[in-house]
């Protein structure tokens, strides 16, 4: 698997976790009401910074642009369908990328694709 793609997925997960546990969020309130303490939310920020430092400026800029626009930057692909735009991917893209060895993007919205 492409190392940068793995970092992008991990960063996407962390950005979502960061937003999920933001002050005043419904998710954070729900988790706390269920008995899950969220005392050390700053740990997520530290982990985000560590992953950001490992990505190139070009990739990070692309990630931030997509995440800012769609509130997520990675879309899974199942059976040739990208689960962001719910469109069948062009066969040449689908046929050459299923091992996640290179970074590919949805031709419709630009999200990073992860082939499941």
């Amino acid at each position, binding site marked *: *698997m492409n190392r940068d793609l*793995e970092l992008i*997925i*991990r960063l*996407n*997960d*962390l950005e*979502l*976790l960061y937003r*999920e*546990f933001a002050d005043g969020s419904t*998710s954070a309130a*729900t*988790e706390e009401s*269920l*008995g*899950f*303490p*969220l*005392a*050390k*939310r700053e*740990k*997520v920020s530290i*982990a985000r910074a560590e992953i950001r430092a490992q990505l190139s400026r070009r990739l990070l800029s692309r990630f931030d642009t997509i995440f800012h626009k769609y509130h*997520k930057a*990675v*879309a*899974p692909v*199942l*059976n040739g*369908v990208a*689960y962001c735009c*719910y469109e069948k991917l062009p066969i040449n893209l689908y046929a050459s990328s299923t091992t*996640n060895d290179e970074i590919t993007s949805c031709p419709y919205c630009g999200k990073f694709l*992860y082939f*499941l």
Partner: protein
Amino acid sequence: MRQPAVPATKAVEPSTVRLAEFLSPHSVSLSLKATEKPEILEELVSLLPLSDVDRRIALGILGQREAVGSTGIGMGVAIPHCRSAIFANLQIAFARSPRGIAYQAIDRKRVQLFFLVVSPPIEVTNQYHAVLAAIVNVTKDAHNRKRLLEAESAVEVRSILGGAA
């Protein structure tokens, strides 16, 4: 065949959740070997049908979630959980440690019952929090905890979860 995640609908009531639907018999371990928290997470994740890369990513985000606050909710129960783009659908794994494991639970007691809950960031039925709530509700009941500690098979575990949710 794995089913895709698609945009969420309205929130689901925990009382309507059937936990057994998310728990494959292959995702049940009645005798955890691990004795430390990181090893427990590894063993739990290994119960799910994931590639090596996906396991590594899952462990990363689970570790981050635990760093925010332990998911050991007391009464000998822990519910590690996370969302990630690597998951196609909501899944549960269940594992039991007869002797109990130090897991930094909120009541500082050893944990015997572990429920791993993983989900895509957005799932079609929007049941992530409802599933967490349903597990909390099931395990609040001392009788259910006793039954889970004494269950002799994955089928029995699924029966307890299916009937009690």
